[in-house]
């Protein structure tokens, strides 16, 4: 029996007699000034053997090490007939084992050490992340680089992953928000590598050789950036990683060309029938890339419109005033190298679907017509300025963010210039970007819900929904076959 040693020191609070002035409003509070310099990426960056780049930060408060490899590849480069390869690889890189270890051995060992090891293939970047206690760093690195460099993709891991993917596919049309997200993207981006869906047939046709060839093509030192933070000596960690990197050959790589042409969908209502008691709604069109010089102005504009939660116009009107929804607002999404989407969103009971949409459209219109108020500007700008340090709360996330900037070829002074770019946004600019990037004549209004009650509407906005635009009734595909179900 080991007892916890508890040491209690009670001391009198005497040295703190300076009084805090009584206030009756938050505006009367006076705050001391705060100085904060964001960390500089250059002071963490190293180039290791064979051109393997890394952002490394010592952080010795806890006996833990976090390390992430960001690989410059993703589902975008998977050919159509091999759709599902990305998800299959996410499941099998670790579980499929390496030349010298089975997947089960790897998972058992990581679990025994109390560590975590995860891999996922994203749209254009893939990540392998590990967290281990610092005493297990050497063994952890051995496994980490083995998985990264020598995966075997054994058949039993593919069998397991295919089985899971097919059961998951069977459920692909169950959840209304999942259906809405997928179908909204399909209408805006059309037939494109960004929207290709796996089917049972494509998943069943995938072989260990397919995964090996994808891995062989993209996984090499110059196509990867590492991020690490934790309880280690920076110099020692560099040496340890170099042991692996020196034995890891580079390759020449040309990425498959991917078109950037997207259809111009006919504006109007796109209705997907589902017997539920709410309509799930997205209203919008394609947006911008985050490298756009107007990015900061767009962020501030959207904060005021519907991105700043309760301080934004759409949330205030649709949720707080009218009680129509729990979840409503607007968003710009971003993706590397392609325009993201702009959309207003709401989920509301069937009879108020039309009314809620009309309120959102009204706010789109208002922000394009009148300048925003001084107070709204102040709240939005101050939010971005005052919350800036939050980006750097987690040491490993900071390193990962730096690695991603470099991998995507974005300016490395992004954080150093961030505050100035926010401060440069003004009311005129907000009006300008609202007019430029919100396009009322292009609105795709997608609704997943029960058509009859949605179409009937309510007192404040009686139907039919074609008042909002021409109605297209969309049919869902059978996710297993990718064919229409009748």
């Amino acid at each position: 029996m080991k007892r916890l040693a508890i040491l209690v020191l009670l001391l009198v609070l005497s040295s703190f007699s300076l009084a805090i002035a009584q206030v009756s409003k938050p505006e009367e509070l006076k705050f001391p000034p705060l100085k904060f310099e964001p960390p500089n990426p250059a002071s963490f960056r190293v180039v290791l053997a064979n051109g393997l780049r890394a952002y490394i930060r010592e952080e010795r408060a806890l006996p833990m090490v976090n390390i992430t490899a960001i690989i410059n590849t993703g589902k975008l480069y998977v050919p159509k007939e091999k759709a599902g390869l990305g998800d299959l690889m996410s499941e099998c890189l670790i579980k499929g084992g390496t030349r010298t270890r089975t997947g089960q051995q790897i998972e058992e060992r990581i679990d025994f050490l109390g560590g975590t090891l995860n891999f996922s293939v994203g749209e254009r970047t893939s990540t392998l992340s590990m967290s281990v206690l610092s005493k297990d760093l050497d063994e952890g690195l051995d496994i980490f680089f083995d998985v990264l460099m020598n995966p075997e993709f054994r058949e039993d891991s593919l069998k397991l992953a295919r089985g899971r993917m097919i059961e998951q596919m069977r459920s692909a049309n169950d959840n209304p928000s999942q259906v809405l997200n997928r179908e909204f993207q399909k209408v805006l981006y059309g037939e494109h590598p960004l929207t290709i869906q796996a089917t049972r047939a494509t998943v069943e046709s995938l072989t260990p050789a397919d995964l090996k060839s994808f891995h062989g093509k993209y996984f090499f030192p110059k196509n990867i950036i590492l991020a690490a933070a934790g309880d280690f000596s920076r110099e020692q960690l560099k040496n340890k990683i170099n042991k692996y990197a020196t034995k890891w050959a580079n390759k020449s790589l040309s990425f498959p060309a991917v078109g950037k042409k997207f259809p111009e969908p006919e504006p109007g209502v796109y209705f997907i029938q589902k017997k539920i008691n709410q309509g799930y709604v997205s209203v919008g069109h394609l947006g911008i890339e985050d490298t756009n010089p107007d990015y900061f102005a767009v962020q501030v504009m959207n904060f005021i419109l519907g991105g700043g939660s309760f301080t934004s116009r759409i949330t205030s009107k649709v949720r707080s005033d009218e009680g129509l929804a729990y979840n409503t607002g607007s968003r710009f999404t971003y993706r590397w190298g392609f325009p993201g989407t702009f959309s207003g969103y709401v989920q509301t009971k069937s009879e108020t679907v039309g009314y809620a949409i009309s309120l959102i459209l009204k706010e789109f219109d208002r922000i394009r017509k009148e300048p925003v108020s001084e107070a709204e500007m102040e709240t939005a700008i101050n939010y971005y300025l005052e919350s800036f340090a939050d980006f750097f709360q987690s040491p490993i996330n900071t390193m990962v963010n730096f690695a991603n900037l470099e991998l995507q070829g974005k300016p490395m002074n992004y954080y150093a210039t961030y505050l100035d770019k926010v401060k440069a946004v003004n009311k005129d600019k907000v009006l300008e970007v609202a007019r430029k990037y919100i396009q009322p004549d292009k609105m795709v209004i997608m609704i997943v819900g029960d058509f009859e009650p949605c179409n009937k509407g309510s007192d404040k906005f009686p139907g039919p929904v074609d008042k909002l635009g021409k109605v297209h009734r969309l049919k869902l595909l059978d996710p297993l076959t990718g064919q229409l179900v009748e």
Partner: protein
Amino acid sequence: MNLRKVALLGLGCFLLLALGSMAIAQVKLEVKEHVLANGMKILMIPKPGVPRVVCHIYYKVGSINERPGITGIAHLHEHMMFKGTRMMGVTDFEADAAIDRQIDELMEKIYREKYWKQNGDQQKIADWQKQVEELVKAQKKYIIKDHLWETYMKNGGTGLNASTSDEVTGYYVTLPSNKVELQMLLESDRMMNAYFREFYSEKDVVMEERRLSENNPGFLFNEQVRAAFYVGSPYHWQVIGWMDDLRRITKKDMIEFNRKYYIPNNAVAVYVGDFKPEEIIQMAEKYFGRIPRGEDVEPIRTSVPPQYSEKRMYGQGPGMPNLQMWFHIPPDGHPDVTALNVLSGILSGETGRLTRVLVQEKDVAVRAMAMARPQWYVGAFTFNVVPKMQKGIKPEDLEKYVWEEIEKIKKDGVTAEELQKAKNRTEASFIRGLESPMFLAMRIGRAELNRGWRALLIDLEDLKKVTADDIKKVAARYFVKENCLVAVYTRGQGR
């Protein structure tokens, strides 16, 4: 986080807990504690570096403090805490309050007509409703919309949120380290002076929130499973509450609930980040210290009576088929709970027994997991398995495989390797949890309200003592048919 270095500041109450010899690492969790005269506790974990402070307040109240008729009120109340006070959310308090009282009077008449009578007068209801709408319009000019939220945001507040669970309600914001006083002012103000403006439209918002859940496949069935399992205790209903209760909850219910639970001696404030504890203590004394102590809250009384025989449920809906098996276990703090927690670790995860046998060896399932949920008053140990439909396996076919695994444990126990792995995982994940200030604040705050935050460390010590024999014993004690509810969900008609 400065957990290794021990710097003794000659200030406040200083508490230091050394974690004996942990098998895997030496970690000290250093929490500074201060108790105000009104009983409110302030917990502080200084973490120098990035100039931000995670500021959380937890109240010892949740859906288990409700009763039939007002289910969902703890969560609705959490929403209403954003609707202003005397100081916040209003330009002219008296003028607004006069209108608000009129609205309440009319709404009471409407509720009586609607809910107290068999055949209420629809015309009367419509007339009153119209008057309410006029008053709501008139009230708008006095209301400052979402004032508290906006004030936090323009001061750089992030992680701004609140949440309600069965046992605890929390209010969260992370601020620049020079602005913690703002949180003290706003949170002490709403602890004392919550004023429930826009009550009726916010009820609509919460009903929409419930509808969102209802449209999540499986939600309605799982709600029934839970209700059947916790037949007696207030864990019977979910945090969101029953729709009918949400409709009928009154402003009076809300005020009564507020007075009973939103008192300093039923709350704890947690600060994690870049600050000097003596400054936090000084501000807390000033802001929270001004609130009078309330009447102590009695723990909930009703537990779950024994089942005496197995329960079975069947349901259909638009979701992924699965088999659930629920067993009653004792609450958090009971000596058997540590072994049950270790057992759930041994059964779960990608290298756990259930996945290894049901998913990999027998190939009858695609997912299989177990979870021990001790909770504060009554606990559950649950199994959840998703069948491999491609092979024609149905959820009910899986039941015998789960029982086989249970019987194996009762008979042969677990291996030393399995036991050590489960212990290592728990300990390491505890340390990992210390990395995130927000997660740390949450764990500390919640634990404090039940058995005190030190229970987290005591449980870790107890974990190390669990033997294979303990696991066999608890499996034999709790995994028996008359303590079990089996729930089978298949894809089909229905919601």
